[in-house]
């Protein structure tokens, strides 16, 4: 009824007639424009795919799964049409431009934009041996050497985990994913909330849970401030320093990257049964391997032959010496061969050094210094005078 009144009202003013007669829908209105992102994204070039899983990690709605395809004999992305939200994250983060949605790839291209990921990777400064294996393995070149240690660019890493496979040291590249971060953040708020409730009651019982004051590893810190939130004392995150501490151990619990740390962590190699060996018949004694090796006590110089040899217990099998050697005198064999040579050389070294030590001491006994002689003579003279 209301609209009828309005129709009549407008008809009398004769303004609506023009609109009324022109009312029609053009067909082009129902067609989508060029940029329209129809779900799901299409896998345009499956042969280019390197199975890195960047699209899988970047999807906010978990719509992408890497499925093994027999035609290309590798894993290629499969997209669930029901879960896709046409955000275009996967297209942006693909390093080889495999996926496309709408005409996004023509307009913005893919990398180097920031990449969202499920699993984040970070290098441990204390365990890294600076061998550069990760740098060689990275498909998009985001690992750089900054003078102290190798660093992964957090903004551009795609989280393919190829560096973890290449890394010789166990646990040198740490991972932290969304689930872990979520649980740590939740734990942090729980602890903080409990502390706020119990404020002023009895804080003595939590003291001295851990034996020493924890330190902060600078390269692992992502400044999430979880530790600052739970700390009863104070932590200076700008300088990576613990200022006041009651040794309650809460910060170690809430840190998602194991950056808060007590005690030393040994460098353990992933490969246990094999080791590098220096063939002494080929070696020219240039000592490049000895200079390039970043691990303490891994390569010694023999006293007898003046040639280097490897300690298989300390060597992390990074292969840096193998790559650097100019005459290909270094090869990979069973650990026992290396151990045998090591034992022989070590024993001879010890023997030689022992002999040297003995000789030193022996020579000391027979050589008098001038002052000793003077003293000795004076004493003798005095004794004689007394007599």
């Amino acid at each position, binding site marked *: 009824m*209301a609209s009828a009144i309005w129709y009549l009202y407008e008809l009398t003013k004769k303004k609506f007639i023009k*609109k009324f007669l022109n009312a029609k829908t053009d067909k082009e209105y129902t067609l989508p424009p060029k*940029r329209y992102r129809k779900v799901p994204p299409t896998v345009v070039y499956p042969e280019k795919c390197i199975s890195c899983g960047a699209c899988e990690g970047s999807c906010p709605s978990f719509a992408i799964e890497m499925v093994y395809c027999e035609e290309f004999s590798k894993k290629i992305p499969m997209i669930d049409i029901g879960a896709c939200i046409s955000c275009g994250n996967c297209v942006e983060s693909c390093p080889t431009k495999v996926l496309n949605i709408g005409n*996004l790839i023509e307009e913005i291209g893919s990398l180097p*934009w920031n990449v969202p990921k499920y699993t984040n990777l970070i290098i441990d400064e204390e365990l890294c041996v600076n061998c550069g294996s990760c740098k060689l393995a990275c498909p998009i070149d985001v690992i750089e050497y900054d003078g102290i240690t190798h660093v992964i660019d957090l903004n551009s890493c795609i989280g393919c985990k190829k560096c973890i496979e290449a890394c010789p040291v166990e646990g040198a590249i740490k991972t932290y994913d969304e689930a872990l971060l979520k649980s740590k*953040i939740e734990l942090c708020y729980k602890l903080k909330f409990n502390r706020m409730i119990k404020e002023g009651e009895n804080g003595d019982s939590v003291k001295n849970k851990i034996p020493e004051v924890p330190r902060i590893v600078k390269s692992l810190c992502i*400044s*999430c*401030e979880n530790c600052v939130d739970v700390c009863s004392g104070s932590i200076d995150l700008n300088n990576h320093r613990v200022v006041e501490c009651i040794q309650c151990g809460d910060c170690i619990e809430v840190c998602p990257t194991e950056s808060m740390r007590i005690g030393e962590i040994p460098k353990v190699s992933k490969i246990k049964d094999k080791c590098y060996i220096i063939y002494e018949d080929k070696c020219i004694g240039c000592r490049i391997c000895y200079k390039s090796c970043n691990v303490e006590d891994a390569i010694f110089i023999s006293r007898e032959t003046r040639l280097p040899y490897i300690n298989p217990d300390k060597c992390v099998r990074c292969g840096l010496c193998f790559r650097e050697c100019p005459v290909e005198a270094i090869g990979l064999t069973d650990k026992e061969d290396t151990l045998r040579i090591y034992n022989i050389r070590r024993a001879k070294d010890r023997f030689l050094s022992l002999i040297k030590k003995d000789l030193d001491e022996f020579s000391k006994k027979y050589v008098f210094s001038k002052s000793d002689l003077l003293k000795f003579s004076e004493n003798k003279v005095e004794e004689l005078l007394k007599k």
Partner: protein
Amino acid sequence: MNVVPLGPINPIFKEPIRIKLIVEGETVLGAEIEMGYVHRGIEKIMEGKHYLKGIYLAERVCGICSYIHTWTFAECIEHISNIEVPDKARYLRVLTTELERIHSHLIAISVYGLSIEHETFGIWCLNTREHVMDLLETITGNRINMGFNVVGGVRQDINKEMIDKIYKKLEELRNDMKNILEIYNTGPLINLRGRGVGVIGYKEIMKTRAVGPVARASALPESDWRLRHPTYKELKFKPVWAKEGDNSARTLVRIKEILASIDLIEKILELYQESTGAVRNRVNIKGGSGEWKNEAHRGEVTYKISLTDGGIIKRIIIRSPSVMNLEAYKYMLKTCPTVSDAVTTYISIDPCISCTERTIVLVDKKTGKTKPYSFK
């Protein structure tokens, strides 16, 4: 005293909410709002996620004002880690926001028209809105939930064809809006249902902290947060306001704001054509925490974010405008003569339920018990 329950599914509501009206005869005495039907816990999902995943979650806080949420989110992160956005991107952001403001206001007006039983007016507004949606789709690639904004700029640039199309459509839109304004001012039924219904004064606005068009219709033009935004300052923006504070004034403010937005877009396009460079910068996210405010279509929206290095969201707090506007609803009910007027008043504040359903939890400090906040 009787209780009339409305919702969660009701022919008049497009979103699930339950309202219990306390009535005596036809007079409405009070209301009780029960919420929680659209609560998905977005803030909780976002914890521990990368910010580029979080921006799509922020987009889906509300489907009607999706772009402004991403804009505020992005600007908050840019504020935290001191990122400079290229000029072109800043202008494109304002352009898209103003287009979205037009579409959101047209929806509000059309639903108001439908709720006062004036279907022609309502459907006409809906049809006018389709032209705006076309523009949004050509610019961003999606009608709603555009995915256009990223931290450090916008995704795609616009080209000459699109600018011509925008100018052409804006001219049509301006004529349409002038028509709608004339009908609104002179139509007998619209003013009969709107004038003097749901009046809220200046003092009650201050008491309930209502924002957006609701506050601006009650003589509070300073509540427009666009006055404090750096890009809008370049445009010499002036807010639209009225002083009556009833249903009619609220809708009138919206119609006039659409006309103001059309002027703004034309200014922006001039500035855009003068500027050069890229539309997106590569960013380096640093950890920290910060706060940013923007004027959404229903009022001020606030984001508080704390981030880690590499851009993982640690904590996020979203304050959306509809919460405050719903508080103001109970003061408006005093001047609602009938139940149908109460519904119209409810529509006229343009409530967005999925915006409203943020987590508000009250914690008892002594016992440690928690309970959700409710409107009573």
